[in-house]
């Protein structure tokens, strides 16, 4: 780093320490280290400074100072993101919202919760449980991830098909703009007047503002939930069974698929009693009133039987339901046990192309010499292929990335997208050129400029500079790109 930047660093720190407890203005390398990456640990950078304000006014002052000095700002929640969206900028400030961890208000009658952005996703449902309510979106990191980060990523989870993504469960957010203005998007009502900036900001990966308060909708906790587990001797049959359930008019609360390597890894890990010989496993959860669940469970079992399931097991107690889910929920750590490292992809596809995509992935697996394990949010088409690799083997991560890139390209080819819920961040910024043409990307840049004309919010993430896209496509990655 140049001496000029060093001077900027102390000068900035001094300014922040005028209104933030000096212990929460971090500038030494050792204390900065934990902030150098998010959940995607392969991408790292040490920031210039980390600040942890604990009032909205302090956030506002941080933004004003950074805006004046044109210093990049990267907002950060729990750092559980999987696309390097919270990776620091080396000449910038990481604005941690970890101290904004209070549930401000729960309205049990109106069924809403007003939250600071650092409140953990699971804590909302835990607090709401006393009123028979819960918060819908449940990303698998829900024990640690924060609601502010959920807004930034438009997080989903297992229950999206029925209960929606973050964007469907928000009423309003309070946000500090790049210029340091405090604004509220949305309201206590369901629809708002004017341009829907709330929709635009949700999933914007910290590029449009810093969220300082979130009001979410709460749902009544279903009376009953039951899960049917079914094994199939081919991926195609399992895929058809998913279509069969939906064609029957049942919208499951959760509908997950695992392929053979995932079934075995998960069963070895937690002994969930999965059918180890199956080529594909479906977990179909139905929730609602007792009568509705009885009716839909019976229909689901009958459909699975007709559609060729080789084994069927239905949970008869909460403990059994938890056990059947345990395998799926431990799929990532289970895979962690059979490989030194794994890389989680996040493409979404129209479900009808599932068999083709998995088959092509198998071929690629051979071509790249890397194993791949598939867990899949089958209800909404969101794939999570886990590519197994060894970070210590020279060149293996580069090969893994190339494999991942090919998977995402395939997702776009069949009419899907490069990211269903993890975001673009730094990780998938090159593949944006596969999914979008230059005109769309240019429009994104202009939307960004409408919020952040100087470009200090999370620069270098989410939307690629156009010249890099042309280079990326010219080396043969973007030939599927058909529009723009």
């Amino acid at each position, binding site marked *: 780093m140049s001496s000029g930047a060093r001077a900027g660093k102390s000068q900035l720190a001094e300014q922040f320490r005028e209104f933030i407890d000096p212990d929460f203005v971090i500038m030494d390398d050792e204390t900065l280290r934990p902030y150098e990456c998010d959940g995607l640990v392969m991408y790292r950078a040490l920031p210039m400074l980390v600040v942890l304000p604990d009032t909205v006014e302090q956030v506002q002052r941080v933004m004003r100072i950074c805006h004046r000095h044109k210093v990049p700002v990267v907002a950060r929640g729990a750092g559980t993101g999987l696309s390097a969206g919270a990776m620091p900028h080396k000449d910038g400030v990481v604005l941690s919202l970890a101290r904004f961890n209070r549930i401000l208000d729960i309205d*049990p*009658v*109106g*069924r809403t919760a007003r939250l600071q952005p650092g409140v953990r996703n699971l804590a909302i449902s835990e607090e709401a449980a006393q009123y*028979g309510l819960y918060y819908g979106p449940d990303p698998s990191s829900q024990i640690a991830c924060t609601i502010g980060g959920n807004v930034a*990523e*438009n997080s989903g989870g297992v229950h*999206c098909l029925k209960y929606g993504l973050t*964007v469907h469960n928000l009423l309003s957010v309070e946000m500090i*703009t790049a210029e340091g203005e405090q*604004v509220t998007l949305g*309201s*206590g*009502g*369901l*629809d*708002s*007047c*004017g*341009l*829907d*900036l709330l*929709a*635009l900001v949700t*999933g914007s990966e910290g590029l449009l503002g810093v969220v300082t308060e979130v009001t979410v909708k709460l749902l*009544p906790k279903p*009376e009953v939930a039951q899960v049917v587990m079914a094994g199939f001797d081919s991926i195609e049959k399992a895929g058809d069974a998913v279509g*069969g359930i939906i*064609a029957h*008019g049942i919208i499951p609360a959760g509908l997950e698929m695992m392929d053979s390597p995932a079934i075995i890894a998960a069963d070895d890990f937690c002994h969930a009693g999965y059918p180890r010989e199956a080529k594909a496993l479906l977990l179909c959860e139905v929730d*609602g*009133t007792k*009568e*509705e669940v009885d*009716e839909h469970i019976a229909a689901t079992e009958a459909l699975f039987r007709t559609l060729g399931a080789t084994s069927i097991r239905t949970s008869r107690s909460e403990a059994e339901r938890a056990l059947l889910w345990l395998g799926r929920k431990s799929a990532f750590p289970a895979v962690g046990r059979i490989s030194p490292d794994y890389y989680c992809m996040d493409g*979404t*596809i*129209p*479900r*009808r192309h599932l068999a083709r995509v998995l088959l092509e992935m198998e071929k690629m697996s051979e071509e790249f010499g890397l194993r791949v394990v598939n867990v899949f949010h089958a209800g*909404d088409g969101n794939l999570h292929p886990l590519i197994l690799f060894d970070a210590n083997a020279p060149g293996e991560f580069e090969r893994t990335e190339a494999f991942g890139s090919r998977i995402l390209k395939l997702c776009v080819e069949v*009419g899907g*997208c490069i*990211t*269903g819920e*993890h975001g*673009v961040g730094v990780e998938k910024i090159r593949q944006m050129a596969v*999914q*979008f043409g230059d*005109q*769309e*990307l240019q*429009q*994104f840049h*202009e*939307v960004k400029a*409408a*919020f952040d*004309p100087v470009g200090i919010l999370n620069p270098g993430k989410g939307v690629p500079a156009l010249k890099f896209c042309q280079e990326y496509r010219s080396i043969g990655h973007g030939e599927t790109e058909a*529009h723009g």
Partner: protein
Amino acid sequence: MADQSQQLREQVLEAGSSGQQLNIVGGGTKAFMGRKAGAGAGTLSMAGHTGVVEYHPVELVLTVRAGTTLREIELVLAEHGQCLHFEPPHPGEAATIGGTLACNLSGPARPWAGSVRDQVLGIRLLNGKGEHLRFGGQVMKNVAGYDVARLQAGAMGTLGVITEISLKVMPKPAASATLVRTLSMAEAVEYMNRRAGEPKPLTGACWVDGKVYLRLAGARTAVEATAAQWGGDLLPDGDGFWRQIQDMQHGFFNHPEAPLWRFSVSSTATLPELEGPWMIDWAGSQRWYCGPAALSNLEPLARRAGGQVSLFRGGDRTAEVMQGPPEALKAIQRRIKHSFDPGGIFNPGRLYSWL
């Protein structure tokens, strides 16, 4: 069934080069909404740009051209036992899906099924430069890029010409029943919120003419069991009643001479009882008021109730009809408008005088 996107694009380019402004018109059934503006503007007709582009029932995804009528879409979906879950109002036979999205219009199921904005998965859009852009997609989960598709909901065509829309569709509920009981407005707000907090298959809750109407819909056994448990009178033609509410054909809306105000507020809010008829929908989140008033007088009431107010129909439509944002958000909205429509061609002044 015709793809007229090329002609539409040429019209936009021509308008851009000649400085001609354009009012975008689908079926023309929602001309009563928004501000009266754009007097010198030409018309860009979407009525011929129609047809289902793709429909895969088991994917729960429908892609249609924006000029397709709601009626046609609903017929296509009904063949597969599916529906538009957000129950779009049909202000007339010719109402289109494009206009529904531009006006962000959803019906009585909205609090449970989501709005048209919630169900949009992707769009194609002609911006003011005549670029035919594609945002979002045909899958349920897609977080690549900003959500420009949902940004169109309620923008009233000020950002561009929506040419194609992909939507999430849902199975039609197997059974439904409507329960009625007599309650005052204040009691009704309390009662509807309490019922909405129970884990039952509630999909409609409104109060009109001194009565609360609750709709249950879903699995037959669940509907029957809940109806027995909750009690109240069973409305014989429940579906007919909700259809009237959805299409604003109910007697409450039959005062075309009086201004109709829409309050979008916290479901539990208490609003002062201004003189004139009121109706409550969406379990308390949407309140309709029919009577003379000035927007500036109603705005503080709406704000106190946690929400916003707009002049939905009638009244003085040369003034603002939507509650306005503070300066910082006004500036952002202006810059967004400029980024999509630098020449200010589309629906000038329809949403706000300053947009």
